[in-house]
C-alpha cells in the first residue's frame, strides 16, 4: 500500500520538479511544481475533436491505457519492508504483459 501511495505522489510532483530544475539551470524562474496538474484541469474543461477515420477504439484506448497503468502500479514493491499491494508467484509476467 505504501508503494502505491508513493508512486501516485511521485506522479503528481515529479514532472513539475523536473521542469522547475531545468528552468533554474537555464536561469529562468520556471512554472510552479504543480503546473502539469493545472494543465490537466485546464484540459478537462475542453471539448474533443475526433477524426471521421477513427472509431471507438481511438476513444477507448486512452482509458484502457490509463487503467492498465494504475493496475500495473499495484504490482510494484518498494524495498524489502513494503511488499506490493498484490503479489503472487509469477506476478511479474502479468506485469510485463
Amino acid at each position, binding site marked *: 500500500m505504501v508503494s502505491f501511495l508513493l508512486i501516485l505522489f511521485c506522479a503528481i510532483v515529479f514532472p513539475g520538479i523536473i521542469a522547475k530544475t531545468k528552468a533554474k539551470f537555464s536561469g529562468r524562474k520556471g512554472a510552479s511544481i504543480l503546473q502539469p496538474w493545472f494543465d490537466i484541469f485546464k484540459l*478537462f*474543461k*475542453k*471539448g*474533443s*475533436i*475526433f*477524426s*471521421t*477515420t*477513427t*472509431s*471507438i*477504439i481511438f*476513444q*477507448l484506448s486512452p*482509458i*484502457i491505457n*490509463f*487503467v*492498465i497503468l*494504475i*493496475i500495473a502500479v499495484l504490482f510494484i514493491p518498494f524495498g524489502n519492508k513494503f511488499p506490493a499491494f*498484490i503479489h*503472487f*508467484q*509469477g*506476478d511479474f*509476467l*502479468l506485469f510485463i*504483459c
Partner: protein
Amino acid sequence: MNTVILVVFVLSWFTFVFSKKQSYWYIFLLELALWISTSYLAINVLISGNEYVSELISNFYFHPLIIKIDKLSAFFILIINFTSLSSFIYAKQYLAPYLKEKSAFNFALHYFNFFMLNFAMLFVVMLSDGIAFLLAWELMSLSSFLLVIFESNKPDIIKTGIKYLVQMHVGYLFLVAGFVIVYAVTGDFGFEGIKHLVEKTPLIVGLPTNFWIFIVFFIGFGIKAGFFPLHSWLPHAHPAAPSHVSGLMSGIMIKMGIYGIIRILFNLPELNLSIGIFILLISIFTGVFGVMSAIVQHDLKKLLAFHSIENIGIIGIGIGLGVLGEVYHQPVIAVLGWAGALLHILNHSLFKSLLFYAAGSVYIKTHTRNLNKLGGLIKKMPFTAFAFLIGAIAISGIPPFNGFISEFIIYNGFFDGIKQGGLAFPMLMMFGILALALIGGLAMFCFTKAFGVVFLGTARSKEAEHAVEVAPSIRFAEILPIFWIIIIGVLPVYFFNFINSILQERFPLFEFKQLAISNSLKWIGIIGAILWLSIWLFYVIRKLILKRKKVIYADTWGCGYTAANPVTNQYNASSFAANFKRIANPVFVDLSSEITYEDKEVFPVKKSYKTHVEDKVEFKFIMPIANNILHYVKKIAVLQTGKIQDYILYPLLFIIIMIVLTVLNII
C-alpha cells in the same frame, strides 16, 4: 447412449433425400442427438472419474468395436462438440449466398460431411483399437477433404483439396507403419500395444527404440497437427475451405494430431530425454516459424492459418515441458507443462474458431480476403470487429483473456525449471522462455496489423465501403466462444483445477493443491475482473465529462484542404510488415517485384508493385521431392497409350510371365 450413436450414424445417410434448407435442419437434429449423447458420456466420466468402456458393435471386422472414454478423451469430446456446435450454427447463414448456385445435392453432401467429420473426430478420441482408430482417422480426412472443396467449381480449390488429401495420406501411411511396428514387437494392434513396449531393445543410431517408434507416430500425427516442417497443407487448406469449416478444422481437427501425440506419450512405458528435447525444439521452431510467416501474409485467412501453426507450437512447447519434467522427475514442472498444453488446446479451439468466423463474416460481406482491399470495417460491421478484437487479444496472450492463462502456466513451469540444478536442464528452460516471449510478441505485432488494416482506417475498396453487418445467427455463433474466452480469463483457477483432474490419472501421487500457481491464477482472475470494471467505470466518467463539452468530427489530414485522400495515406498490410520482412527474410521466399527508376525518367510513369511471399519449406523442401516423383511417374505413363489393344496385351503378358515363372519353379 450407444444405440443413439449408431442410429444417428445410420440416419445421417438419408440426408440426400432432403431439399437445400431441410437438409440443414435434418443434420442439425442428428448433430444435436450426437452432441447430447456423447457429451453426457464425457461429463459422466469427468464427474465420476471412472473410465467408460462399452461394446458398440460385437463383430466389427472380426473384432468387437469397443469405445473407451477416459478423462483425456472426455475433455476432447467436450471441445469437439462445442466447436462443432458453434460452427454448425455459423454455417447456416454463411452458406446462404450459395443457395442459388449450388444444387440440393451439394448442400446435402456438405452437411452430411460435416456430420461425418464430427462423428469421426469423436471416434478418434474414443477408440483405442488400432484398426478401428485408423478407419475413424481416414473418415476424418475424407470428410474434411469434401468439406474443403465445397466451392469445387474453382480450379484452385480442387488443387488445394487434393494437396491436402495427399498429405493426409502420407501421414496415414506413417500411422499404419507405427501401429504395425508396435504389433510386430508386442502382438497388439492399437494404443494398448504401446503400453507393452519394454525397454529391452537395443539403441538404434545411439537413441533408444522408443524414440524411433515415437518419431514414426509423431510424423503421422504431426502432419495433421501441422508441426514444422510438416505444416505445408495448412496455409492452403484453411483459406480454401468455407469459414465454418476452417474454424472447425483449425479449432479442433488439427488437435486430433495433438491428441494422438499425447496418447502415445501417455501410453509409452518410459519417456526418454531424447523425446522431450525433440518435442520442445521442434515446437519452438514451429511456433516461431508460424508467427513469422503469418506476419507477412496478405490473405486474412492464410494469416490465421499460420497462427494455427504457431499455436500448435505453443501446445507442443507445453507437451515438451511436461515430458522433460517427467524425465527429470520434477512432477511440478511436468504438471505445469501438461496442464498448460491441455488448457491451450481448449483456448486455441475457442479463439481460433472465433477468429475464423469473424474473418468469414468479412469475406461474405466484402468478397475478398486480401488485407489490402479491406479497411474501416469497424463502422460497417461493429460486432464482427468486436469479435475479431477479442479473438486477437486472446490469441496474443494478453490478460485478461484466456490465451494468457495457458501461456502463464507454461511460463511458470519454465521458471520453476530454471531453479533446478545442472546445466542442460536450465538451459533448455531458458530457451523455452525466450521462444515463448518471442512468439507472444510477434503474435501481438501480427494481430495489430491484421486488426488495424482490416477494421480501422478507411476502406481501401468499394466492396469494403459497402459492407454491412452479418446476420444474427452468425453473431450468435461468435458469441458462444467469446463467452468462454472471457469466463476462462476471469475464473482461470476453476479451469486449471478441471485440467488437473484430468492429469490426476497420470500423476496419481501428486498433490495438486500444493501448487503455488493456483493462488496466482486466483489473483489473475481478480485483476481481470478489476480491469473490466474499471475500464467500464472510466468510460462512463469520460462520457459524463464530454457530455457538456463540444465534440467535433472532422477529416484526418483535413487542415482546410479538401482533396486529401485518407485511403492512400494509411499503412497497409505490406508497409506495416516491411521492416519485419527485411529481418525475417530467411524464413520465406520473397517473390516481390521491385520498383526501379531509370536515369532519364524525369516524369515518372505509373508503376506497379507486387508483394508476394511463399513458404520456404514448401518451396525448397516439398516441391522438389514432389517434382522428382512426378518426373518418374511421367516415365511410367508411357504405358498409358490409350489403345485398347495395348491394354489387353498387358494382362496377357502378365499371364505368360506367371506361367513361365511357375514352370521354371521360381515362384
